[in-house]
């Protein structure tokens, strides 16, 4: 309390970092609890005025030993854990894991289940991108209006998930060789209704904010990610496509039944925050097209392969990598089996973490205010970054 006393550890918050050429730099620790770090994430930003000259991401606050847990539990018991990776997108996490195990065990999946998987994956993409649009605009200082609009629709999708799987976010829905529950006709009706009105929501949302000059000024030319850097850094998902690289696993791998459903892949030309935002908005429209086609073509039949073995599941020794195009990028699971009930090695390829690696490159030269929206446009979930 005494201003004359030498600054103590706590009082040293205005400690300046000496730089002989540029005078005093200010080191600001944004996070681990900061309104815009989207969880317990920390950015140590060194500022020259408001400009960022160094930025060090610090994470791991939410580390839960996910991969080791996967190696010490049975294959099936890991399924609920994958929900907690990217907790916005449990359905796609489930699918990626199920795909890896199915590859490992040579398990076939019935047509109906493949359709339902695509349905849920695209709903998840809508959910994730809607949330992202809300969060990103919240970071630009919109006082909550776009966020609330987005969350209204998000809740509608989560209601569907809850009706189907019993849980809003921790769905635990996929099984090796199909899905856990067969969706009822009433549920399908509800999905049709949602898909039918989602276009209107997107129109409303874009009308509300997309053309706004302040938003354009805040996002265009901010956080440019060149295509070469994106490829070298292993960036995937909408972030890669916003940099103009045509790479979508739904088309590259053609996993599931995606080759049956035509869709377009929006590509950005600038790779800035605005492109990252817009590519996601456009992807949602494409997802709606896929959803309509799936709803139209949905066949009958079993939801899970009757020969699939759930209890006492022991795949033969070998290894497999299953990956899908999650809403945030390539979510993959690498599994090694030694013939036992647990995987010998269980490894996650988390898109959030790998996309986050270019954060400093994107932020250098920009201001604190930009760093916040650049981070928002990368679209991370700390559950997946830290695992």
């Amino acid at each position, binding site marked *: *309390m005494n*201003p004359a006393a030498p*600054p*103590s550890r*706590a*009082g*040293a*918050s*205005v400690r300046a970092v000496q730089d002989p050429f540029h005078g005093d730099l*200010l080191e*600001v620790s944004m996070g681990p609890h*900061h*309104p*815009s770090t989207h969880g317990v994430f920390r950015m140590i930003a060194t*500022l020259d*005025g*408001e400009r960022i000259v160094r930025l060090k991401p610090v994470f791991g606050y939410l580390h839960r030993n996910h991969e080791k847990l996967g190696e010490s539990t049975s294959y099936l018991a890991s399924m609920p854990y994958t929900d907690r990776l990217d907790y916005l997108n449990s359905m796609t996490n489930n699918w990626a894991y199920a795909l890896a195990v199915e590859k490992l065990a040579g398990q076939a999946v019935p047509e109906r289940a493949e359709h339902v998987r695509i349905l849920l994956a695209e709903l998840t993409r809508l959910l994730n991108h809607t949330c992202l649009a809300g969060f990103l*605009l*919240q*970071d*630009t*200082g*919109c*006082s*909550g*209006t776009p966020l*609330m*609009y987005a969350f*209204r629709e998000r809740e509608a999708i989560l209601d569907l998930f809850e009706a189907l799987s019993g849980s809003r976010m921790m769905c635990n829905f996929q099984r090796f060789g199909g899905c856990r529950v067969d969706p009822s006709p009433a549920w399908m009706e509800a999905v049709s209704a949602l898909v039918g009105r989602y276009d209107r929501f997107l129109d409303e949302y874009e009308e509300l*904010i*997309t*053309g*706004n*000059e*302040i*938003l*354009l*000024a*805040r996002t*265009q*030319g901010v956080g440019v990610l060149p295509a070469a850097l994106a490829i070298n850094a292993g960036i995937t998902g909408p972030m890669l496509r916003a940099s103009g690289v*045509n790479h*979508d696993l739904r088309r590259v791998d053609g996993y599931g039944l995606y080759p049956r459903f035509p869709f*377009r*892949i*929006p*590509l*950005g*030309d*600038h790779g800035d925050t*605005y*492109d990252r935002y*817009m*590519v996601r908005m*456009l992807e949602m429209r494409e997802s709606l097209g896929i959803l309509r086609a799936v709803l139209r073509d949905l066949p009958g039949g079993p939801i899970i392969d009757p020969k699939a073995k759930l209890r006492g599941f022991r795949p033969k020794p070998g290894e497999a990598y299953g990956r899908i195009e999650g809403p945030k990028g390539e979510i993959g699971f690498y599994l090694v089996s030694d013939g036992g009930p647990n995987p010998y090695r269980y490894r996650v390829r988390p898109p959030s973490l790998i996309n986050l690696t270019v954060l400093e490159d994107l932020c250098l030269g920009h*201001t*604190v*205010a*930009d760093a*916040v929206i650049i981070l928002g446009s990368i679209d991370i979930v700390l559950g997946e970054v830290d695992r």
Partner: protein
Amino acid sequence: MNPPAADPLSAGLLERLPLLARDALTSGLPEPWRWVSNSLLAILAIIVVFSSLFALLTLAERKVLARVQNRPGPNRAGLPLTRFRLGGLGQPLADGIKMLTKEDIVPRGADPVLHFLAPVVLLALSLLTFAVLPYGRLLVPVELEAGVLYFFAAGAATELALFMAGWASRNKYSLLAAMRALAQLISYELPLLLAVVPVVLLAGSLSTSGIVAAQAGWDLGFLPRWFVLTPWGFASFLIFLTAALAESNRSPFDLPEAESELIAGHLTEYSGFKYALFFMAEYLGMTALAGLGVTLFLGGWREPLPFLEFVPSYAWFGLKLLALLFVFIWIRATFPRLRIDQLTRLAWKFLVPLALLNLGTAALWALTAGWGPALQPLRWLGATALVAGPFVLLGRGLTAGLRPRTYRFA
């Protein structure tokens, strides 16, 4: 209160009601004390009225924001100890009690004196500005010759208090916020003043009641001669509104307390009652600026249509004030926030040149005041072109290179 220019006895009973109430209260006092007691009563009235307006405004802001955002807003707190919820009307009371009972934290290493003084200074300065606003035909607390000048002198000093808060908190976010507050002050004080100069020019007076008097009369028998209804006045009003948003740190110019970037900016290290004081001062500052906007551009306490004269003038002032405050809240619910460099660019490259050009337009308007009815359309057309042309051209320069894009598909 000093006797206003209008004859009090010619006004209606409702109009004179506040003065009658005041006289009833002070009639027992000897004559030499009257002046002091009248002034004290006026101060008391301002503090009571605008403090309760502040309380309701916090609720209104939350309610309006909530309605814009598809949610009900605060609706639990009502009459204390009863089951009447009154749609959340008790929320300000609940907030107040919460603020008062919270611990007041002063960070170690902070300057305790400045840390304490900042909210006090801010509140005091915000209250000072209310002295010169004409609230009604007979309600001018202090009749100052240079009322507008006084208003800005007191209003501009509030940013100093923000800087004090940011500096004294010994917190990096607060410090950044303090820097931003200063940059914002320097950038936006100028367009704010320049937007007011045309009004002073046309009204020929720096006194607020003189400016209201200059807006008397009707065009075509029903159009009020408010300054906002002239081309230059409209432009001035918009510049004033923009700069006022920036001066009161309101969205989209709420950079000093940008929540998503700087936690709470200069308020990061404030809690409890000091925080409440800051909150109150910011709302009072916003109310005062809105009140000035009403006085300068919207005809002050004047009625919008001739036959509505029977409604007391302070009611009109209140209604216009509330409408302007609603616009402030509405804007907050709609726009994203600017970045600090964009904020200053908007001021220096757009608002200041526009305000300067507008000053010329206003001067031309004053020069051509004697033109006959035949030349009036020409006068209007010319002034409109002089206002709209620079607006479009300067606006183009400001948003150069920014446009919605088209995307290719693979």
